[in-house]
């Protein structure tokens, strides 16, 4: 049992960030050391949490020693542990890349903001309270605002403004939904909601349905589900590459929350909501997929291409989530693991390219870039992963999803396969014009610092994909159990020990 360690993914980065701001504001080296240390520790903790959640089942941390549902609780279950692990792993790559590439020196406060972002995302994964989820959403969002405009620049700032404005509307929606939740049910604890909602009076059903839809749409905004995806391309394309890579896990927060609520609080067998969320998310997921793929094919700059790749991957994830069955959920989880690492890797590769290239436009040639051979190989690998081509995990994820959707084969399969085709086209076009254009061969590339750490980080992410591919068997077995537990949350609810203090 993990005891106090459950809250470590929140407290550790908060403490480290506080320390950085207080004592080492003007010392980059010290901040780098602290930042890496913190994230390495976070990885160790996440690993221990993952192990504990796998072997001991859901564990609840009663903040302030108040009983649930009256105080706030953190719940460590397989899903939250997995997401925290994913977060920690990604963070390690990102922080190493940021140091290696010098991104962290391009403005003030990169490291504390990154720590706060980790705190926000980790907290969102771990919390067992709906309103607290909002708070941690806001933490991760505001840290992301800071990171998004890191380094400054006119377009980045303007894109950041759009990002903030749109998300503020999302936050408002979240609060509307939470107010409705509390006013209808009188509680905010997720387990309590899961336990009470089946007994909801029939007359409240319609309001609950609205509540459910509003909540899920909030998560859909975070997850860039069409038609709520407009914020993503500009944001991701204009954010510093290393930050965009970190954002790859932010969209997954939306997917995670959708799953947590859609499967556990508003499961398909809940009389009031029934298949409501299924009917909402699945079609939207499919459309998202297409929008993303079309964007990949149509993007005229590399960052936008990658951003649309991110949208497409969220479309895939939401499609799988939207079915709300254990099988599809298991596939969705595998795909989420894959696409987070893949998208992040792609953003890092894009950053490697863009920082070396005279401009980001794909339609025009540019002088050759330093280390082009290595970078093009990385691009190829990341593109294979993003497009869901073999042999990397993207293909396995796609197969898992296709297989899980055999009942809805004609629609889902054709959309997924057509989207894959468009993705292949898009990535191939972009890759060949980035690395193969004849006029790109004329001049000798600039000499550049080797950035060993940055390449290591990128390789690390790709290695993660390879591991995910090779270990697909045990991983899917583990995910299968995780998915099942979402649809049979007795252990989760029991761990909350509801009503023992009332």
């Amino acid at each position, binding site marked *: 049992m993990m005891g*106090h360690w459950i*809250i470590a993914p929140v407290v550790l980065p*908060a403490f480290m960030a*506080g320390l*950085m701001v*207080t004592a080492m504001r003007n010392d980059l080296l010290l901040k780098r050391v602290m930042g890496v240390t913190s994230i390495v520790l976070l990885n160790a903790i996440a690993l221990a949490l993952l192990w504990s959640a796998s072997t001991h089942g859901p564990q609840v*941390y009663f*903040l*302030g020693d108040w009983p649930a*549902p*009256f*105080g*706030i609780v953190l719940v460590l279950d397989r899903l939250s542990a997995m997401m925290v692990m994913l977060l920690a792993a990604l963070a390690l790559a990102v922080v190493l890349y940021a140091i290696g590439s010098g991104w962290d020196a391009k403005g*003030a406060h990169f490291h504390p903001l990154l720590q*706060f972002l980790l705190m926000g995302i980790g*907290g969102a994964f771990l919390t067992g309270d709906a*309103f*607290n989820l909002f708070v941690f959403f806001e*933490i991760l969002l505001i840290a992301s*605002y*800071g990171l998004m*405009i890191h380094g400054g620049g006119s377009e980045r700032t303007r894109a950041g*403004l*759009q990002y903030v404005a749109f998300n503020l*509307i999302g936050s408002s929606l979240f609060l*509307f939904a939470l107010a409705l939740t509390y*006013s209808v049910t*009188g*509680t*905010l604890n997720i387990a*309590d909601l899961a336990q009470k909602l089946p007994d909801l*009076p029939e*007359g*409240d*059903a319609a309001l609950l*349905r*609205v509540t459910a839809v509003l909540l899920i749409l909030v998560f859909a905004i975070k997850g860039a589900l069409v*038609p709520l995806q407009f914020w993503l*391309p*500009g944001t991701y394309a204009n954010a510093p590459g290393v930050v965009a890579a970190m954002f790859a896990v932010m969209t997954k927060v939306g997917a995670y929350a959708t799953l947590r609520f859609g499967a556990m609080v508003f499961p398909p067998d809940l009389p009031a909501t029934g298949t409501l969320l299924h009917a909402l998310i699945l079609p939207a997921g499919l459309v998202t997929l297409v929008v993303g793929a*079309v964007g990949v094919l149509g993007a005229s700059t590399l960052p936008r291409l990658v951003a649309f790749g991110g949208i497409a991957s969220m479309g895939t994830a939401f499609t799988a989530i939207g079915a709300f069955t254990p099988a599809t959920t298991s596939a969705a989880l595998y795909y989420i693991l894959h696409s987070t690492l893949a998208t992040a890797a792609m953003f890092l590769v894009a950053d490697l390219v863009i920082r070396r290239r005279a401009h980001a436009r794909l339609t025009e040639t540019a002088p050759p870039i330093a280390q082009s051979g290595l970078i093009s190989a990385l691009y190829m690998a990341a593109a294979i992963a993003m497009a869901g081509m*073999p042999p990397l995990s993207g*293909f*396995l994820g796609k197969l*898992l999803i*296709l297989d899980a959707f*055999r009942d809805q084969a004609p629609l889902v*399969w054709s959309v997924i*396969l057509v989207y894959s085709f468009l993705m*292949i*086209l898009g990535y*191939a*076009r972009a890759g*060949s014009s980035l690395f193969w254009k*004849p006029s790109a*061969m004329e001049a000798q590339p600039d000499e550049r610092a080797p950035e060993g750490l940055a390449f290591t980080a990128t390789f690390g992410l790709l290695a993660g994909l390879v591991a995910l591919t090779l270990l*697909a*068997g045990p991983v*899917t*077995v583990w995910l299968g159990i995780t998915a099942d537990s979402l649809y049979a949350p007795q252990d989760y609810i029991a761990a909350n020990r509801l009503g023992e203090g009332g």
Partner: protein
Amino acid sequence: MTLALIAALPFLGALLPGLMIRAGRTACATATGSVTLLALALLALQAPAVLRGEIVQTRIDWLPALGLNATFFLDGLGLLFAGLILGIGLLIILYARFYLAKSDPMGQFYSYLMLFQGAMVGIVLSDNILLLLIFWELTSLSSFLLIGYWKHLPEGRQGARMALAVTGGGGLAMIAGMLILGNIAGSYDLTVILQHKEAIQASDWYLPALILILLGAFTKSAQFPFHFWLPHAMAAPTPVSAYLHSATMVKAGLFLMARMWPVLAGTPEWFWIVSTAGLVTMVMAAKIAFFKDDLKALLAFSTVSHLGLITMLLGFGTRAAATVAVFHIINHATFKAALFMTAGIVDHEAHTRDLRRLGGLRTLMPITFTIALLASLSMAGIPPLNGFLSKELMLEEAAHTTWITPWAMGVLATIGAMFSVAYSFRFLAHGFLGPVRDDYPHAPHDPGPGLWGAPAFLVLLVVVIGLFPMASAAWLVDVAAGAVTGAPVAVKISHWHGLEPAALWMSIAAVGGGLMMLGAWAPLRAMWDGTPRPEAKRIFDGIIEPLAALARSLTYAIHNSSLSRAIAVAVLAIAAAALWAFSGGSHAPGSRALMPVEPVVAVIWAVTMAAAVSVPFLHRIRVVALIFVGVVGLLLVPFFVLMSAPDLALTQLSVEVVTILLMLLALNFLPKTTPEESPAPRRLFDAGVAGIAGIGIGWLAWEMMTRNAAFEPISHFHLAQSKPGAGGTNVVNTILVDFRGYDTFGEIIVLGIAALAIYALSENLMRSPAVTRRLAGTRPEREAGDRHPMMLVVSTRLLLPMAMMVGVYIYLRGHNMPGGGFVAGLVFAIAYLMQYMASGYVWSHARQRYDHHVLIGWGVLIATLSGAGAWAFGLPFLTSGYEYVHVWPLEEFELATAAIFDLGVFLCVLGAVLLALASLSRLAQRTGEVANTRAYDTEAPQESR
């Protein structure tokens, strides 16, 4: 395990060249070749068992949940193909060593080649269709790299992309088809699927599966109408063409059709689709090949044609035809690879592959000519070479197959054979025969044995199989065809079948016709040139480019970076979804007793609404809009007071004040008015969108307020436990610092982050020259002469400590009465702001002893540590304790650890507000103002210290 090792070896081998290239080109080629040789040897070790009719299997669990496992099996078909792939692969490695120029990165080439080899071996050895799919797509990817190997050639780039698009796309279709098959059979293992012929052919899903799988096969094997990519792939170095586009990859499609033959073939659908595609491809490609001037293009179309032939044979669905197909696969691989290598030699030596610039090479390159002669004759179907044997068998099968009419198939096959003869002889005649020319781009002569060794070996096979088919090839055909048809085969191959068979006469007609066509080359060529025909690349570009352009315009039209569109769409979508959700559930109106409306409250409500509603109408003068928004915010204060929420009133008020200061600070940098930009219809639309949302939210609020919660709200616990459990009578505060202190913990961190982000951005802004330039222009036209009026300064000296005292008071009483660390922090911040406003930032800040960052940092640290302090007692984070303390002579008072947490809140809030506003003030200093050294402007009575 051996099979897995055979499949894995080339992949492992792909790592070698990169390392070995440092040791030299020969070492690199040797290392690569030895890996292939090793795999070939391992395969040979399995051969006896396979030839005995056994099936060798290997199984490694990979993804059992999906039914995707690393399962391999080796039967006759697999043996044939694996042997071809590895054997010809070995020759290609040898050939490439001498073919590639010094400037070509050879390590990269061999790596790609080995990747491809591994993928191909994987395809033919897979016993799991999902695994097969993985290898299948890998061949597309690795061939993409190989075709684009010469990066500087635009044709290579486009050819690679086209090949990837067509074969990769076909592969995607095949995924669906395979999944269907797997679902029908209940397993993705080939050996299982192959036993479910009846179930599969009876299924409703048979036709879709067939079409999808054939899409994969046809695209890979360049069958009509997907034949167009193959010639463009010829931009690749010749070894690639020889390997991929004659011997292996294009045959993957054939392999697949052969592999699935037992379950898919034998139906009318199969017959019509497959044999028609094959027939059309055969004839059409042969005709095109005849007119191609580029040696490799000629060979490429000839390949397409022969693939069509084999496809057609497989399509017939008879065992005999399938057997012939297998035989022709072997023959074609030998002579076509040899021809490609020959073409490569010519190109390598003469520096051109254009038949119009060649001729007369017979005397200059006798060895090459000999190889080319034998291989071409085989391709033309001239006895006794191996091409003749399989062509005869093919014609025989065609003659006995009814396709539309009994004779059509025979006639068309003969025409195809005729073209085949024609282009084969043209290859010889225009390339090697005729007089020696003096205008070759480079003086040609025979290369060393390194280059001609490989094709020579292949031609040797051509001859040997041709002369002794039963001894040299029949055993292989038997075992492979047996695997295809699922029944034992004992093929009889002979050169002479007597005068009866139709094939003899068809053959003679073909050879005669072919020679006549070559004789009539000039007029035929003129006719060909005069005929308009679709150019594959243009058609492909005509599809892909508009598709990409459409994607681009769609994407940029939809994602036009317009925030207002994003919001409008989101609002409408959310409203629609909510309405839809509501309409699907039963709804009972609320039954809660309503609160009566007081006239005074109604009047003030009306005033608030008037202020709110007016903002859209006068928002273009920004200060005025700010005033009206401020009025609404101000009037919320008495609202919260009226509704029993003193803490909220305090917070709303103090936040409102700080917000207005912030907005004014900001407005200083921004334009003071908003131009009218949206046309009236747009404004009306926006109003509609906003109105819909307003109605929806208002109505939800009504529904919410008029009903009671379905279950007892959890706050009953907070009310009951506030005093005894958390030691405070202000329940809102105990919730904030205790019951839900974790929320507050997060909330102050949000504020802290906000300040850090603001600081970071303002730092960046101050570094930008453009910003500095614009800042200088933000000063108003008319300015008051004094910046720091004395009266304000003096009043502030009194008000500052007073306000701080109020802040302390609010902090201290917060646990029991309205107030708390947050409001206290804001009051302190307001006090400081007052000081800044009075005497200016520079003067005031110079007298401050600490940085705002430190306040934030300490706030976060104190809050964190006070929460973590509970760990020392083994209690969870943020567990608080309180104690009533009695110190004589004072009254009893309470000490609560929650107060320490609240101190963290206080510091964080104070630091955050100050840092945020200080960042803005620092920007303002860049407008060119001079820092003041005195507290106020007025001249006369000043003090100093």
